[in-house]
Structures are given as structure tokens and as C-alpha cells.
């Protein structure tokens, strides 16, 4: 930490200042001048929290995508379909058994196994042929999308969270204070959907666990070595195909898991596959191909950009995410945390 600050004194200063401003905006009671300028604090806080939780969802989808890409150089354009499939599986499991929590492992396993099949029957046969892989995965995504449309129709599916998760939570953060004519002070606190908080915490746990596995275990070491030099790793006798299958299973499973999450606080329907594929592409390009911390940072940026955009300048909200992507590509083409 100290070394980083010493190396980049200016940037560290700017970041520290931004962090302070953010803390002030979150915890202080806003003076009227500020409210006149940028609106009510409740709106700002909600946009911030929503951006972060949406970032959590994007991270779940994009981390699998970036992991697979980083290790195998496969651009799996069927990743969005895996997300959608996970969502549908999650809905039916939760609907039939009534157990929301059960939906997660089932979706993870089933979609992960489909990923293994993809790896064995598709990617292994065309290793190193980027264009062919890209085209084949686009084809697979179209076929999967049509099969799902055929199977479950074009309706919108909402996965209902259990009762203890539905409804809002009082966060204790003050959104406004109003003095009434009687001298009494009315304080309103921020209410925030419980389910979004839980989902965000879960994605943080998954992200940290992934980072730990990658950096602190033997399997992680194999994966990292594979990312750096695949041929050398296999020359040392590591069973690289097994590692590939494992990573593909995990990456696809994460997409399925994210599908259940997305179905809970948004909805699953045809077309979501493309949307989340696009989102994870943008996240991965912004964060840096193959980097897990990069995916986290990218997801956070894109999530916040979407939410702040939709509240503060709705007309251009759609452009904002792509603007971020363009700026990153122009000044740091390898991505914010990517290696050049």
C-alpha cells in the first residue's frame, strides 16, 4: 500500500479525495444548496447502491466469461445463453420445490455440466482457432435461444425470493432531516430492498473466494500458470485438459448462478441472453480480459454508470456505458487492470 502511494502520489491523492467526497455524500445530511444542485439524497443513495448491486450481478456473469477467456483464449459467445438457461432452471426449481436457495446449486451444476459438454465436444476440437470458435459459439447461442423459446415460451419469469428476503430493510442512513413548525425534527432513513443487499454480499463472497482459490491454492496456481503459458504448463506434466474442463465447468456454472440472481431481482425472458453477453463483454473489455479484479472493477463501473445515468441524464444513459468502453479502449486498450 505504502509503496503504491509512493509510486503514484498524484493518483493516490485524487483517489483519496474521491473516497472522502463519497463518504461525505453517503453519511452527511445534505445542505440545501447541494440538494438544489443535484437533487434529493435519497435518489443519489439509491442510484449508488443500485449501481453497486447491479455491478455484483454483472460481476457474476463476467467473471466466468473472463476466467474462460483468460485461460483458454476462448471467446465463448454462448455465455449469455448459459445465463438465461440458469435463470429458467432456477425458476422451475424454486417454483416446484418452493426452495429459493436450492435453485442456486442446481442451476450451477446443470449449467456447469453443459459447459463441460461444450468444452469437450466443441472447444477441444478447435483449439487455437479463434474465428471458428467465435462463429460456432454464436451459432450455439442462437440454437439454445430458440430451444429455450420453444421449451418455455416468451413469457417473463420472476423468481420469488423467500419471505424473509422480500421487502425493504431500514439501513439507518439518513436521507433527509426536516424541521417542522413545532420544532420537532423529522428524520427519514433510507429503505433498501433486502434481496439486493443479500445478493450483493453473496457476489462479494464469491469474488473473494475466487481470488483466494486462484492465488492461494495449488489448483489456482495451475490455472494461473496456464494463463501465462499454456504449452509450458502442459510440458511440465500438468493435466491441462482436466484444468480446462474444471475452469469451463466453474465459469459456466457461475453464469447459471447469475441467471438465478438476475431472475430474482429482474426477470428472465428471451433476449436477456444477448443483453448479458453484451454486458459481460463490455465489463471484460473495460476491466481487462482475463483478470478477476478487473472484472470486479469493470462491473462496478458499468453498473454505477447505468444507474446514475438513468437518474441524472436519462436521455444519454444508454450511451454512457459505451462511452466508458471507448475511453478505456482509447487510453488503455488492455483494460483497466489488464496486462499489456
Amino acid at each position, binding site marked *: 500500500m505504502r509503496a503504491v502511494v509512493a509510486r503514484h502520489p498524484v493518483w493516490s491523492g485524487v483517489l483519496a479525495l474521491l473516497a472522502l467526497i463519497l463518504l461525505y455524500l453517503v453519511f452527511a445530511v445534505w445542505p440545501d444548496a447541494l440538494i438544489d444542485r443535484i437533487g434529493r439524497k435519497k*435518489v443519489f443513495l439509491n442510484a449508488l447502491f*443500485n*449501481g453497486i448491486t447491479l455491478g455484483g450481478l454483472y460481476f457474476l456473469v463476467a467473471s466466468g466469461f473472463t476466467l474462460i477467456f483468460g485461460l483458454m483464449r476462448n471467446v465463448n459467445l454462448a455465455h449469455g445463453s448459459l445465463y438465461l438457461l440458469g435463470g429458467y432452471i432456477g425458476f422451475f426449481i424454486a417454483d416446484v420445490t418452493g426452495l429459493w436457495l436450492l435453485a442456486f446449486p442446481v442451476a450451477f451444476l446443470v449449467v456447469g455440466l453443459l459447459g463441460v459438454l461444450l468444452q469437450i465436444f466443441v472447444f477441444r476440437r478447435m483449439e487455437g482457432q479463434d474465428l471458428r470458435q467465435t462463429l460456432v459459439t454464436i451459432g450455439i447461442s442462437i440454437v439454445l435461444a430458440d430451444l429455450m423459446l420453444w421449451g418455455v415460451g416468451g413469457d417473463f419469469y420472476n423468481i420469488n425470493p423467500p419471505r424473509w428476503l422480500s*421487502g425493504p430493510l431500514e439501513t439507518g442512513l439518513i436521507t433527509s432531516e426536516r424541521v417542522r413548525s413545532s420544532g420537532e425534527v423529522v428524520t427519514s432513513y433510507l429503505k433498501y*430492498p433486502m434481496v439486493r443487499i443479500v445478493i450483493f454480499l453473496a457476489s462479494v463472497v464469491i469474488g473473494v473466494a475466487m481470488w483466494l482459490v486462484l492465488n492461494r491454492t495449488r489448483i489456482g496456481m495451475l490455472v494461473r500458470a496456464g494463463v501465462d503459458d499454456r504449452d509450458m504448463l502442459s510440458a511440465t506434466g500438468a493435466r491441462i485438459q482436466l484444468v480446462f474442463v474444471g475452469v469451463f465447468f466453474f465459469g459456466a456454472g457461475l453464469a447459471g448462478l447469475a441467471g438465478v440472481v438476475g431472475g430474482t431481482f429482474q*426477470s428472465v*425472458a428471451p433476449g436477456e441472453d444477448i443483453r448479458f453477453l453484451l454486458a459481460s463483454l463490455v465489463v471484460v473489455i473495460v476491466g481487462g480480459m482475463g483478470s478477476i479484479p478487473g472484472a470486479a472493477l469493470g462491473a462496478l463501473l458499468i453498473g454505477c454508470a447505468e444507474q446514475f445515468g438513468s437518474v441524472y441524464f436519462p436521455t444519454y444513459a444508454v450511451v454512457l456505458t459505451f462511452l466508458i468502453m471507448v475511453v478505456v479502449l482509447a487510453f488503455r486498450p488492455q483494460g483497466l487492470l489488464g496486462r499489456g
Partner: protein
Amino acid sequence: MYKNFMTGTSMLALLLGAGAALADAHGGPLKVGVLATLEGTYTALGEDGVRGLRTALAQADNQAGGREIEVIIQSTDTSPDSAVRGARKLVEQDGVAIVIGPLSGSEGIAIRDYSKTQPDVTFINGISGAMETTYVTPSDNFFRFNTDGAQWSVGLGDYVFNEKGWEVVATVGEDYSFVYTQVMGFVTDFCQAGGEVTERLWVPLGTKDFGSIIAALPDDVDAIYLGLGGGDAVNFLNQYQQAGGDANLIGGSIMVDGTVLNSKGDAKNALIGTPSSGPQADTWDDPDWQAYVKAYQDTFAPEDRFPSPSLLATGYYNATSAMLQCLGEVGGDLSDGQAAFRECLTGLELDAPNGTITLDENRQAIGSNFVSEVVELDDGSLVTQMVKKVDGVNQTLGLEKAAFDGVGLPSRDTPACQSSY
């Protein structure tokens, strides 16, 4: 030699082509193209639109004027360019004589413009409801047998102000022509009754995450008008419930339609008791309406349809019925640039299940409008129940044309909230 061969082949091709065209004019199957949103946010809406079309065709045994009807369905995704691309494919590639569609507001405006470049093809609107489609530079070969989004709002503003006692309202809507038209109808009605619209929030069509919009909703209003549809509506309701929202809601026409009321999950329950308006009410006891609902139910297996037709199914059903009726009247004869067929459409008094429909000079429908409330049936399903019916609603909403033009074309901020126009 080679040249001769080529000339011969071309002549043959021309002859064959002409032969096909001749066959087209005198009997043989008649190709009808259909545009419906079978992709994206409005998928469920497009699917039910097609069901409405199939219901009408099934009633007519797939025949009109002694000719068999061959349907070619083309999917769109609510964007104007997808609609034009689809229409091009139907007209220029498949060679259809009649196009039924599109479904979504801005698609309709684009198809109106495209129809002007294809004077030999007749376009009958599916259910798209933007006002401009027929009110601004109307096209001679574009017919609309459904009332537009503003007409669908007639009676609602008055009802919520006088019956519900809601005086201050904010609106949330998808940012495109149809919802502008809907809000226009609501605002003119509501403000003339004495209400006040304080804020209008717009979100892009296809928004999934409404968290921040929900937080930005004002607290100091009596009710919130929701102009959302399809997946957007379901997502909004889902997140609105999770955020603990409990304001009074007013529904736009496709917000409280069968496509949302039959979605899976609990989100839709937030709509129980919500007043709304549109070209139909699900539980209307009129015998014609009941017969139509039965026909819809009989045409499809229960798992392949909604419990009762959505307004999109009704729109496509009416468009198809109008086509079939006029094809029958002219005996399937579409010669002379479809002159006789179009004349029949222009003068048609369509005996639609949701009330009689006639066309004005812009070939725009004049028909009935229904104010309704969402009720829960004994089996737990949600339907709209009529509370008021307004007949003979025209496109200028009962205003003089000059006064109506003074209101301005619907947009984000137009019309202003005034007590008279």
C-alpha cells in the same frame, strides 16, 4: 448462341413471373405478411397478437373470397428499423399483397412511411398506437382499425380524479412514441378534470433495472401513472415490491394487460385495484365479446395461450377480420391496385368484439374505450373489470381539430397540464 440462350431464358423467366402474377390476381392462395414483435421486451405481446390473427383465420377456415390465405410471419423487436426490414422482406422478397402489423408505436410510424413507397400493397395496422402514425402525413394505403394510445386513455383521468379522488399524479413511462401518446391522452383528460401532473419520468424501452427510478419517484403525489409494458412492466413491479413501494398506481393500457397480469411470479399482485383504460375490458359481459373470448380459447390449448385474449390479440384479430370481410366482399379480387378492396376497408363498419369500429378520413379507427380496474378472481388470476365505457372516441379526443392541433404532438413534455385546451 450463348446470347440467344440467355435471351430465351430471360423471356421464359419473365413469362413465368407474369404467369405467377396473373395467378395472384385470379384465385390461388393469397399471401398475407404479418409483422409482430416476437423478440425482445415485447415478445409476449407479439405472441398474443399472432394468436389473435390465428383466431380470426381459424373462424374463417383460412379462406376469404374463395381464396386460401397463406400467412408469412416476420418477427420485429420494437425498433423502427427492424419493422421496416421485416416489411421489406415480406413485400419485396415474399411478394405479399397485404401486410398486417406492426405492433409497437414507433414501428407504426416507420411502416406508415414505408407504405408510401409500396402503393400496390395494403397495410393494415396490427395494434401499434402512436398518434402520428395516422394523424401526421397519413398514408393512403395504411389502415388502422384500432384506436390510438391517446384514445385508449379517454375517461381514465376523469375517473381517477372524480371517483378515486387523486388530485396530484406523477408519470413514469417508456421513452417512445406510443407512451407519449398514452400520457397525452391521460394528461389532457386528467388536467381538464382538475388534476395536476407534477413530474414525468422517462426510461428507455427495455429497461431492466428500475431501482433508481423507483427511488426517484416523488413522495408527495396521490398516485403514480405507469406507462410501461411487457418485460419492463414486470421488472418494474418486481423491484417496486422489493423496495417496499405502496403508492396508488394508475396503469397505462399495456401495463395492466393480460400480458402482464398473467406473468409468472408475485410481482403482478401490486396491480390489484389499479384503475386503467384501454380498448377492452377482460370480463365485459357483452355477448359478442364473450363469443370472441370463447373463440380465442377454443383455437388454442390452455397452456399455449392466456386465459383470455390480451388487447394485442384483439387488435390483430380486428385487423384480420377487417381484411377477411373485405376480401370476401370483393371476391378475393385485388386487381387495379387493390382499389375495390381498399374502398371496402375505407367504408367498413367493423362489428368488432370490443364495440363497433369505423374509420375517419385518415383511415384511423373511431371506437369505444373502456375504463377498468384490476380484480382478482377466485382462482387467483388477475383480470380487468369494466367500470365505465365511452363510445365513439375519435382521434382528436372529442376536441375540435384546431383546438387539438393547439395541444401539440405528443412528446416528453407535451401536452402541458391545462384545465382546458
